[in-house]
C-alpha cells in the first residue's frame, strides 16, 4: 500500500516534469517560430529595398504570401509548420534579392561594354585625326 502510494507520487512527479519539459519545448519552439518569421520579414524587406519587386515580382509575392502562411500557422499553434514556412519565405526572398543583383549586374555589364566600345572608337578617331593633321 505504502509502496504503491510512493509509486503514485513518483509517477505524478515524473508526469509533472514531462509536462514542464514539454511546455518548455513548446515555448522554445514558439520563440523560434517568431524569430523565424522576423527573419523572413527582414529578408523580404531587404529584397524589396534592392529592387526585387522590379526584377522578380512574382517570386517576391510568393515569398510574401508564404510568410503570411507562417504567421497564420503560428497563430493556430502549428509551430513547426510556422518555422518551416518562415524558413522557406526567407530563402525565397534571398533568391529574389540575388536575382535583382544578378540582373542589375548584367545590365551594368552591357552598359560598360558600350562605354568601352565608345571610348576605344573615340581614341582611334582622335589618333587618326591627329596623325592626319601632322602630315
Amino acid at each position, binding site marked *: 500500500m505504502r509502496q504503491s502510494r510512493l509509486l503514485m507520487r513518483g509517477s505524478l512527479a515524473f508526469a509533472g516534469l514531462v509536462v514542464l519539459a514539454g511546455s518548455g519545448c513548446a515555448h522554445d519552439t514558439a520563440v523560434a517560430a517568431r524569430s523565424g518569421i522576423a527573419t523572413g520579414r527582414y529578408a523580404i524587406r531587404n529584397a524589396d529595398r534592392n529592387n526585387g519587386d522590379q526584377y522578380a515580382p512574382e517570386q517576391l509575392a510568393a515569398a510574401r504570401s508564404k510568410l503570411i502562411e507562417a504567421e497564420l500557422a503560428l497563430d493556430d499553434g502549428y509551430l513547426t509548420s510556422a518555422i518551416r514556412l518562415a524558413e522557406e519565405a526567407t*530563402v525565397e526572398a534571398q*533568391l529574389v534579392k*540575388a536575382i535583382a543583383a544578378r540582373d542589375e549586374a548584367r545590365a551594368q555589364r552591357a552598359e560598360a561594354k558600350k562605354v*568601352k566600345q565608345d571610348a576605344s572608337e573615340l*581614341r582611334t578617331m582622335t589618333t587618326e585625326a*591627329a596623325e592626319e593633321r601632322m602630315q
Partner: protein
Amino acid sequence: MRDRLNQRTSGRWDAICLAAIATVVLVMGCKSLDPTSFELARAAVAAAKNDANVAQRDSLHMEDAERHLALAEKELDDNGKQRVLDHEAYMAATHAEVARVLGEASRDEAAASAYLRKARRDTAGTGRVIESAVLRARALEAEQTERGLELTLGGVLFEFDSAELKPEANLTLAKVAGFLIALEQRAVLVEGYTDDRGAEDYNIDLSKRRAESVRALLIENQVGADRIIADGLGPAFPVASNDTAVGRQKNRRVQIVILEPGLPAVGARR
C-alpha cells in the same frame, strides 16, 4: 470453463494484435518516402558546387544548402515524414540556386569593371592625343613624366640676375595659359631652377622669385590662382652639366608641371 473461455478469448486477441502489427509493419514498409525532391536537391547542390562563379562569392548559401541536404538525407534514411523531407530538399535546392545566381552576379560585376577599366585607359589615351595635338598647335614642347605633363621654359625668359620677365615671355606664357585653361581640372606646379654659379641660398631665392613671376603672369592670363603653386629649387635637379656654358644655360629654366588629374600640387613638390 471460465479459464478455457479466457484462454480462447486471449488467443483470439493475440491473433488480432498480430494481424494489426503485421498490417502496420506492412503499410510502413510499403510506404517508404518519395525521394524525388531529395534527388533534385542533390543535383542542384552538386551543380552549384561545380559552378566556377560560385566559389568567388559568399559560401554561406552553399553551407546552408549542404546543411539542409544532409537533413533531407537523414529524413529519407530514417523514413521520416515526406513533408519534412520535401521542406529540407526545397531549402537545399533554393540555397544552392541563390549561391548560383550570386555567382553570376559577381561574374558580371567583374566583367563590367574590366570594361570600365579599359574604357578609362582609352579615354586617358584620347586625352593624351588631344593634349599633344594642342601642344603642337601652340608650338610648346612637353614631356610626359610620372608627375604629369612637364613643360620646360628656357632661360631666355628673364634678364640676367633678375626675376622680371622679358617681354618675349608674354607670348609663350599666354600660350601656356591657354593650354592650362583647357586642362582646367589639373593642378599646376611652377618650378624655378638655376645653374650652380653663385651662392646656393641666393640662387634658391632667385629661382623662387622667377617662379612667382611666371605664376603671376599665368594668373593674369586667367589661370585659376588656387591651381598653381610656385617653388624655387635653385641649382638642384640639373638637366645638364654645369661645366659648360650651354649646360648652364639649360639648367637655368622654369618648369611647368601639369599634374595628373586628381593629384594635388602640394603633394607633387620636389
